[in-house]
């Protein structure tokens, strides 16, 4: 059975991480541009925001694993799925309170809206770029 050499696999993962972190960098720039944070707010905001994103990412990763084909079907899988869903909500709720401690409410709203816009833009880009690829598989 052919296994990819570990160093190659490692490199692929690193490259993916780099790409993702690059997009995250763009997201942070976009959000900071939209929120126009003061220096003080910015110092408090970004550490919390990164922890918030990490927590969400971790749960989503687990959720993906739970939904993968390797996972056995059954009640347990369904329960876990629902548990992760509620965890996502809990994280959002907790960090929203944290954000509200350091930012005015309209800036927190603006942050969520900016995230949504950012995701929309990514999807838009994807659909725009898929056109030529479709003709040329």
């Amino acid at each position, binding site marked *: 059975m052919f296994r990819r050499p570990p160093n190659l696999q490692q490199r692929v993962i690193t490259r*993916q991480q780099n*790409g*993702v972190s*690059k*997009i*995250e960098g*763009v997201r942070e*720039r*976009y959000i900071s*541009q*939209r929120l126009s944070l003061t220096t003080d707010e910015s110092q408090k905001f970004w550490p919390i925001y990164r922890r918030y994103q990490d927590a*969400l*990412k971790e749960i*989503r*990763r687990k*959720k*993906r694993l739970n*939904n993968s084909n390797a996972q056995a079907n059954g009640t347990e899988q369904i329960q876990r799925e629902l548990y992760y869903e509620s965890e*996502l909500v809990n994280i959002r709720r907790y960090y929203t309170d944290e954000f509200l401690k350091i930012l005015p409410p309209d800036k927190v709203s603006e942050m969520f809206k900016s995230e*949504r*816009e*950012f*995701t*929309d*833009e*990514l*999807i*838009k*880009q*994807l*659909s*725009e*770029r*898929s*056109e030529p*690829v*479709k003709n040329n*598989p």
Partner: protein
Amino acid sequence: MNSDRGNREWLNDYMSLKQVNPNNPFTVPEGYFDELEQQTVSFIKLNELKNGASPEQGFTVPENYFEELRSNINARISIEDALNKEATGLTVPEGYFDNLSQQIQSRIIVGESLTEPSEVFAVPQDYFSHLTENILNKTANGQKTGKPEIVKPRGIVRQLFSSSAFKYATAACLTLAVGATIFLSQNSNNVVQSHDNSFLHKSLSAIPVDDIQNYLQLNVDPTDTRTLIDESKQVNADNLNTDLQDELDTSQ
């Protein structure tokens, strides 16, 4: 006594008189004599007043009238002065009437002097009698006498306002101004949005599709989105936006 008896005897002669009640039927109203004096006095006064209405007897001077007259008049004058001052505040300047006639006369003189300029424009003597001659001298005769006449070169005068070119130019300017205003206002409204989009577009256009897919897999959790992206070897652009939007709306 005789007389008494005689007096009583006649009663016997007239029986009917005996039947009359000898008591006095006339009574005095109560308190009549108490008020009588006052009533009499007032009656007399009324009569006097009635008689006094005639000019020969009337016109009486109230008591002490002339003794207090002067002070009364003075008091009235001062009161009226005070009232007038408060009401109008109009006072005659000092020495106003002394100089009044003089001032009026001087005004009249000034007015006359102002109207004079109309008389200033006088026609010089024999102006019109020599007018034709003078004109001819300066024009026709002057040419005959061979005087060098300076003819100024006259440029072509175009009446801009009456030409149709001006109308078209006006219309063009107006169109341009309105168009520019609309264009600029639309642009200014979209400045923020377009800037944001351009920033995102610019930043993200350099990122490969795979990275975007990876990011979306991690950050957009719904199952359908993942399968769409995973399986879409290529994403169907027509359905993708609607599908993803619906999914995002429900999931986030």
